[in-house]
């Protein structure tokens, strides 16, 4: 299935009794609340009253599956298809789908709570493995940077070559944006189409409210909505807002670029070359000036990727791709001669230990990069050449805005000509650190 509308996803989630987590999460995002509730209820039975409690649910017309009907009580999604809920007798709890009608849901809640066999009825919440530590670490990194710029004596490396005027301007931006001289650039990527081929995008992320987004899924059965986080993070760096809300530091570069979010990787992070090529074809057909690909594999040069890169250049598009994080030779598609390969730098502007090498054109900030991730977490820190690549894509969009002649190969040449040289071999950092235009 090429594309599924968000409304259809929510409706499907509401109508199916017991849903898979992806669908529940999509439905919650559709509702637009940050309550972290799944829309299902946890019914806790009174001690020793599991049997009576299950009967009480049944008396209210709910069809429930019992965990004891499964081998070793290992419940499978397929096994409970069509049921309204699951009874877990070992712990005296049932998980049930709430009636989709709000008034009926309240009636049900009131009636069930009054039942002598039921102890309580509570909304079920999502569980995320994503650590808040990542957010806190990113926040600390940002505040440390601000403290350093203000001469507060915080420990850590001082950003090189920052002049006083710039120091004032960069307050509240990520280290990567500062290193690329983004905060002092007057450009916004206005009128430039930037495609990010990845795991999709959180289309309801508040930092992108009001932004025009064209999206398309090339993953069978999955809508564009990003349940992985990688795609939303990359789009955040390349195209995130100039002024995120509250104390969140600026993390996005081409804040007025038109976003093309192509989902070529699934919510588990996997994809086929066929799907990726279909995404490249779509982005070029839409004449996206910049096409950012933070993906790849440790395989030799693929003629199909080379052909796609050539088609891009012929049509005024530029594909930038992540070299890879294996500490080995550049992977595909970045190893194709028609695709710009991006290496990762640490905050001290040395190549990251993981960054692939060999066929490298340019470098970007890739270690401990703070950017957007899907709701409800909203922000997170990631590392990799995947994070360096959208820094190059965002700066490419800013350069493209300066001159309509800077397209395809001309844009490629401009990025390399304006990169900041670094004291490392070209096989590690290419022509150096990508820089935003100051014109």
């Amino acid at each position, binding site marked *: 299935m090429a594309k599924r509308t968000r409304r259809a996803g929510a409706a499907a989630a509401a109508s199916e009794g017991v849903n898979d987590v992806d669908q529940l999460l999509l439905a919650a995002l559709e509702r637009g609340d940050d309550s972290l509730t799944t829309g299902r209820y946890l019914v806790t039975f009174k001690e020793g009253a599991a049997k009576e409690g299950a009967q009480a649910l049944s008396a209210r017309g709910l069809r429930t599956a019992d965990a004891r009907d499964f081998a070793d009580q290992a419940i499978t999604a397929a096994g409970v298809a069509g049921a309204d809920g699951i009874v877990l007798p070992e712990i005296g709890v049932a998980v049930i789908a709430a009636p989709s009608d709000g008034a009926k849901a309240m009636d049900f809640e009131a009636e069930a709570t009054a039942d002598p066999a039921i102890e309580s009825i509570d909304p079920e919440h999502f569980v995320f493995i994503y650590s808040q530590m990542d957010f806190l670490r990113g926040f600390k990194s940002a505040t440390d940077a601000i403290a350093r710029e203000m001469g507060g004596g915080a420990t850590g490396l001082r950003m090189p070559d920052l002049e006083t005027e710039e120091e004032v301007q960069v307050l509240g931006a990520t280290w990567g944006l500062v290193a690329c001289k983004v905060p002092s650039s007057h450009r916004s990527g206005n009128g430039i189409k930037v495609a990010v081929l990845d795991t999709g995008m959180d289309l309801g992320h508040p930092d992108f409210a009001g932004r025009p987004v064209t999206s398309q899924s090339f993953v069978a059965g999955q809508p564009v909505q990003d349940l992985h986080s990688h795609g939303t993070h990359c789009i955040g760096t390349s195209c995130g807002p100039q002024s995120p809300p509250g104390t969140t530091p600026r993390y996005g570069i081409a804040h007025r670029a038109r976003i093309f979010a192509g989902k070529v990787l699934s919510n588990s*992070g996997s994809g086929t*070359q066929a799907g990726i090529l279909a995404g490249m074809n779509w982005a070029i057909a839409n004449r996206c000036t910049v096409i950012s690909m933070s*993906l790849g594999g440790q395989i030799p040069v693929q003629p199909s990727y080379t052909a796609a890169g050539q088609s891009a250049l012929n049509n005024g598009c530029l594909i930038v791709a992540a070299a890879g994080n294996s500490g080995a030779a550049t992977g595909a598609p970045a190893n194709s001669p028609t695709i710009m390969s991006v290496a990762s730098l640490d905050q001290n502007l040395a190549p990251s230990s993981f960054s692939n090498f060999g066929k490298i054109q340019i470098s970007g900030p890739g270690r401990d990069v703070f950017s957007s991730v899907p709701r409800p977490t909203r922000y997170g820190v990631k590392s990799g050449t995947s994070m360096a690549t959208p820094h190059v894509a965002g700066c490419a969009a800013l350069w493209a805005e300066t001159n309509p002649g800077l397209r395809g190969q001309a844009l490629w040449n401009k990025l390399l000509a304006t990169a900041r040289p670094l004291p490392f071999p070209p096989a590690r950092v290419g022509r150096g650190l990508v820089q935003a235009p100051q014109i």
Partner: protein
Amino acid sequence: MAKKKVVPVKRGGKASPRKSAAQGSWIVTTSGNRAIADIAKDLKAAGVAVEQTLHQIGVLTVKADKEAIGKARAVRGVSDVSPDHPVNIGPPNSRDTW
């Protein structure tokens, strides 16, 4: 025993089960000097199932068994035939990525 091996043949049909089981996903890149629609036609005639024709980049994604893919390599205008390599950037919400 030998007689039993003959049994599946009775099912008949256009493609034998053995043949379809050996089908793999392939990426066909064209040279650009022949219409991609004509190349697709020749591929189909060679027993290749064309799944996507990506006009903009001159690439076709196909499914075929080894015998058909051997013929596909000889189709005029085909510059390369390679297996479809899966890509994986790692699990959701991980700090380290591709």
